[in-house]
């Protein structure tokens, strides 16, 4: 029993932290710019593919540094050339723009790297067992992912709260005119934020691409769940994204481990009922639905999310 709880905790926290790496960029862009970036998971995919190509030449560590920068620069370019012009036409136009971007990036990835998964591997330096627990191995790469995710949270938090740059960014959000009047170039700040956010998605791609599989469907698979995290945590709230990521990671992981149905529980309470109905379905099969259920519930009862400040 303790064994399975410990494993579920470890697995849940790891999955949660991976989600956080993705969600942090998305919530940052939304919080700072008010842009809901549908294409966020596409930048994550680009990060993984770029890392694959770069690691062929420079190895994993080179890819870890360069790939997020490339993705960030691409993000900056897209913001500067596309999004900034679309911005004038309001939020719906922006949404549609990023929605279109999803398909453009998808097709580009297929054109460049093909339909098949690519052989992007975990670096050998990290391909060992960190420790064994109850006979199960905990790979070092998972430890590395955890470390990077925590480092990312701390770095972003310090950047926003403790530095002058962060102060200006936060000010441009709430009082763009005033910041502009003080001589700061607000549009350039927005470009920077977008580049930073997409760069973070790229970094998540570098980290997760080899842990999972780098293939053209990876953006599509990750897209919806990241939105759930951001909505649950509160749009624009970094702390909220962290809490929501962990909640979703743990909830899905623990649900998988549940090997009984509601009918079983009733039976153990002495009530024989519903073994053949929907109540007889194993709870673990409901697991994948839970994050979406949580999102629906939070939108009904607390629309601004767990820690969000915006009503939207």
């Amino acid at each position: 029993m303790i064994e399975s709880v410990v494993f579920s905790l470890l697995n849940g926290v790891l999955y949660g932290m991976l989600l956080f790496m993705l969600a942090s960029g998305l919530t940052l862009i939304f919080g700072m710019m008010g842009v809901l970036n549908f294409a966020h998971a596409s930048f994550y995919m680009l990060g993984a593919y770029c890392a694959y190509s770069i690691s062929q030449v420079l190895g994993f560590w080179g890819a870890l540094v360069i790939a997020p920068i490339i993705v960030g620069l691409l993000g900056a370019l897209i913001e500067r050339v596309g999004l900034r012009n679309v911005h004038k036409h309001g939020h719906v136009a922006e949404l549609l723009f990023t929605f279109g971007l999803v398909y453009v990036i998808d097709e580009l990835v297929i054109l460049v790297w093909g339909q098949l998964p690519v052989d992007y591997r975990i670096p050998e330096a990290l391909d060992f067992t960190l420790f064994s627990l109850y006979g199960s191995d905990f790979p070092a790469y998972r430890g590395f992912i955890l470390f990077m995710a925590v480092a990312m949270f701390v770095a972003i938090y310090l950047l926003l709260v403790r530095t002058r740059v962060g102060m200006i960014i936060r000010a441009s959000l709430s009082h763009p005119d005033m910041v502009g009047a003080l001589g700061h170039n607000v549009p350039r700040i927005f470009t920077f934020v977008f580049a930073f956010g997409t760069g973070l998605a790229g970094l998540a791609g570098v980290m997760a691409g080899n842990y999972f599989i780098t293939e053209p469907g990876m953006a599509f698979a990750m897209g919806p769940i990241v939105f759930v995290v951001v909505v649950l945590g509160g749009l624009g709230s970094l702390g909220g994204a962290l809490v929501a990521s962990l909640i979703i990671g743990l909830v899905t992981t623990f649900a998988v481990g549940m090997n009984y149905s509601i009918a079983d529980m009733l039976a153990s309470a002495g009530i024989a009922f519903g073994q053949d109905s929907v109540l007889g379905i194993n709870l673990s099969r409901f697991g994948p639905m839970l994050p979406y259920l949580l999102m629906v519930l939070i939108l009904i009862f607390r629309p601004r999310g767990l820690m969000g400040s915006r009503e939207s």
Partner: protein
Amino acid sequence: MSEREAALKGAVAGLILSSASALAVMLPTAAMAQEEPIRIGYIDPLSGPFANVGDAGLKQFRYLAEKMNAEGGILGRDIEIVGFDNKSSAQESLQILREAADEGIHYVTQGNGSHVAGALVDGVEKHNRRNPDNRIVFLNYAAVDPTLTNEKCSFWHFGFDANSAMKMKAITDYMADQDQIKKVFLINQDYSHGQFISQAGKDLLGEKRLDIEIVGDVLHPVGKVKDFSPYISRIKASGADTVITGNWGNDLSLLVKAGDQAGLDVDWYTYYAGGLGTPTSLGKAAAGKVKMITEWQENLAVRYEAPELRSMLEEFEQRYSGIEFYYLRVKTEMDMLKKAMEKAGSADPQAVAFALEDMSIETPFGTATMRAADHQLMQPLFMSTFGEDYLEYDSEGTGFGWKMDAEIPADETRVETSCEMKRPTRAS
């Protein structure tokens, strides 16, 4: 026709004939195949997430058609494969069926997704009832839902891959001989395919080896799980030494990779580990541990000394880098179609369908027979293991390949059918 028109036509025909005979000297094959080609509609995803699989299948059909045409085609006519994109949708496929019928296509082939195959069987039945002059035969090269050759069986449908029940029988027969297997865990995708394997696996193992304990049976959502670690923890906790899974694509790769990372030491019995792109994403995580049950893998051509197949697969791979000669059954399908048409002496769908019943052909691995009772092909199956210890061909350039463990003769894959075939009255 007036006399003048007839005279004119005669003159024109004479002119064409004389020039044709001159041409015929230079191009004998072109003259032979001047009749309309026999067209086969290929209905599979050519766009969307499964486009790569559909595209690889289409290339293989086209390649084999080209080979056949170079040898004179069927009854002197060329074979033409017409690709249709069904976007993995049953609805779309029925639309295509109508389109194909309008274009005068009498043969369709499909494989990816039993939901599509099921819809096509219904669609073809309905169409043939309403259009007795324009019938369609459905050659299924990969959909393995057992209902297709049982409850839903149709005279117009022919299954060329061993169905899921036969594969499960073969897997459990093989497992029954492996004494080291004590505890088995089943993990499958939560839809008809996975649910069937979970049930059949438990039933068959129970019959064959009472001492084997089923220590777990899990269904997970299709294509939605990113991190399989929690499932791996459950397998680990159950103490299983063997896992059976019907998973395909990423659901299989992610599962096996997560197991490898957690140091899970089990043998994986799979259906689809050899599928397009799967060996690449599995890599060394699968080496020595993953087995699959199939009618073919490339090293069998070496093992059974089949030079014709070897030159074929080598030529195919040279032409299309990145994909492999995945389906021997596509070749079986085309060869049988040819033999049936030659036996029937025409390409008439009904005559060919009758000719296909009980037809046998020789493959390098033994005889393949189309069982008349349910239109299910009986062919030898093979259990193979992924690893460094392969004969000659590695998979997708990974440095790992398939090595045969055992042959299951066609006879031993036999599963009884509940099909009550309704045949049309034979026009003599």
